[in-house]
């Protein structure tokens, strides 16, 4: 971890238009939740649909994509990363710092609003608020690591990340059982399912993978992607054109 790298990353990430985009998504979740509560009362089924479908299924992958790629991608594209690379800094320290900033952003703008939305929707009943808050937190952390790695290895990180999050996890994951085992969303749902406990089954908040597998995969993907991104940053090739 490096404080200066963290400050520069945060300034870049929260500067200008990207900050608006980052704030827009949780604002949508909270207004939808307030509306749902107002119209339908405290409805656990509706809460699972909103928190599972929107918060875990859309909000957090998108936040992870914006924060994960945004923590390093623009610097690589415009070449300004050269100011970090020409310093006696360990490349892994640079990546870990950037990952931590992105993960913090997704936790604050994804998991915390999910917790608030859960409270708005159903109060503390059935542990839905806590369950989905923890689920979106671990999902957000894993997405950040994965998408940061993508931004280091390819210029098309945003497109590939969108395809993964929306097409693979959401579309294919719904219909192809095998694909669900390779889905950050499903791994995180396993954590949520465990916290929610018995009611998860009847509310349909169940994961395609077991808890132990899910936790191992989350840790392996997060740590592995971060480590590999640091390794790739050591030999990253910058374009030389102006």
């Amino acid at each position, binding site marked *: 971890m490096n404080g200066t790298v963290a400050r520069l990353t945060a300034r870049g990430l929260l500067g200008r238009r990207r900050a608006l985009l980052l704030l827009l998504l949780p604002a949508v979740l909270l207004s939808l939740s307030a509306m749902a509560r107002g119209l339908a009362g405290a409805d656990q089924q509706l809460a699972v649909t909103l928190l599972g479908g929107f918060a875990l299924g859309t909000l957090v992958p998108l936040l992870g994509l914006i924060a994960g790629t945004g923590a390093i991608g623009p610097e690589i594209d415009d070449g300004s990363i050269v100011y*970090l690379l020409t310093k006696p800094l360990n490349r892994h320290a640079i990546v870990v710092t950037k990952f931590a900033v992105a993960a913090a952003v997704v936790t604050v703008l994804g998991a915390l609003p999910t917790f608030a939305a859960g409270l708005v929707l159903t109060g503390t009943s059935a542990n839905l608020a806590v369950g989905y808050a923890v689920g979106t937190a671990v999902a957000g952390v894993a997405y950040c690591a994965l998408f940061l790695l993508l931004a280091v290895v390819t210029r098309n990180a945003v497109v590939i990340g969108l395809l993964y999050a929306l097409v693979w996890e959401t579309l294919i994951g719904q219909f192809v059982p095998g694909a669900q085992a390779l889905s950050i969303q499903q791994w995180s749902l396993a954590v949520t399912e465990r916290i929610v406990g018995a009611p998860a089954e009847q509310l349909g908040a169940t994961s395609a993978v077991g808890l132990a597998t899910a936790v191992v995969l989350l840790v392996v993907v997060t740590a592995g992607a971060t480590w590999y991104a640091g390794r790739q940053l050591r030999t990253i090739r910058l374009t030389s*054109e102006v």
Partner: protein
Amino acid sequence: MSTLQISQVSRWFANVVAVNDVTMTIGPGVTGLLGPNGAGKSTLIHMMGGLLGPSTGSVTLDGDVIWRNEQIYRRIGLVPEREAMYDVVTGWEFVLANARLHRLPDPEGAAERALETVEMTGTQDRGIAGYSKGMKQRIKMATALVHDPPVLLLDEPFNGMDPRQRLQLMELLREMGRQGRTVLFSSHILEEVEQVASNIQVMVAGRHAASGDFREIRRLMTERPHQYTIRSDDDRALAAAIMTEGSVSGVQLTSTGRGIGTHDGGGALHVQATDFAAFVRTLPPLARRHGIRLYEVAPADESLESVFSYLVSR
């Protein structure tokens, strides 16, 4: 006192050879890396700056390998060609951040000194995004100087500068050289290089074409054979006459003339003169003696590329 050693270095990208078997030693003082666009200057500077590994050969600083050696940056300052910086911050914040990234004991003092050196203290509190090209160049320079490195690498530092900024930077580079630093900058303009650099390394098409001080490089460039394109009313007869001249080393006839008075407009004579002053002096009387009318005598393309390609095939 630091020395960069480039030993039999080649670097290729897929099937493009950007740097081809280059060996050079860069010692203290100001060295200019001169070459036309695409010569491989940036690729070479990136290898000296540890941003790119050589495909073969080695690049070292005082014996230490530069590639994948992060600690080398304590001794190297690099001014990149691209303009992008972390422009959400001010000049002061950015230079200070660079000082902190170096973990200097007194980052504020170091940032202050670097900004003074590049004369940016007056505008240091403005956002980088609002700086002119010259100001950005100076902030880039300050970030490279903030840790007082013995080696300074600059890629096309004069690009986009106005004449006054150019003079200031030239003076700054000379001063860095006088202090005993090893300063290397790239440029595609000979006049720029010879005003600052005590040593010039010329690159053409990935190859190390020549090296020396500016007098030696000038001599190589002005004493090369000069090319002329000549049109006359009888190119063939003129070619024969010109060949008897001692100042000429080669004559080529591109489309055959059809005899006196039938100049077809498409033909021309390409002459290579070893002594161009003598050649220009003797051509008109020569033509008159043979009863040939000269329509046009023009120096062939004098672009830097042709100058440099001569240096390579020399």
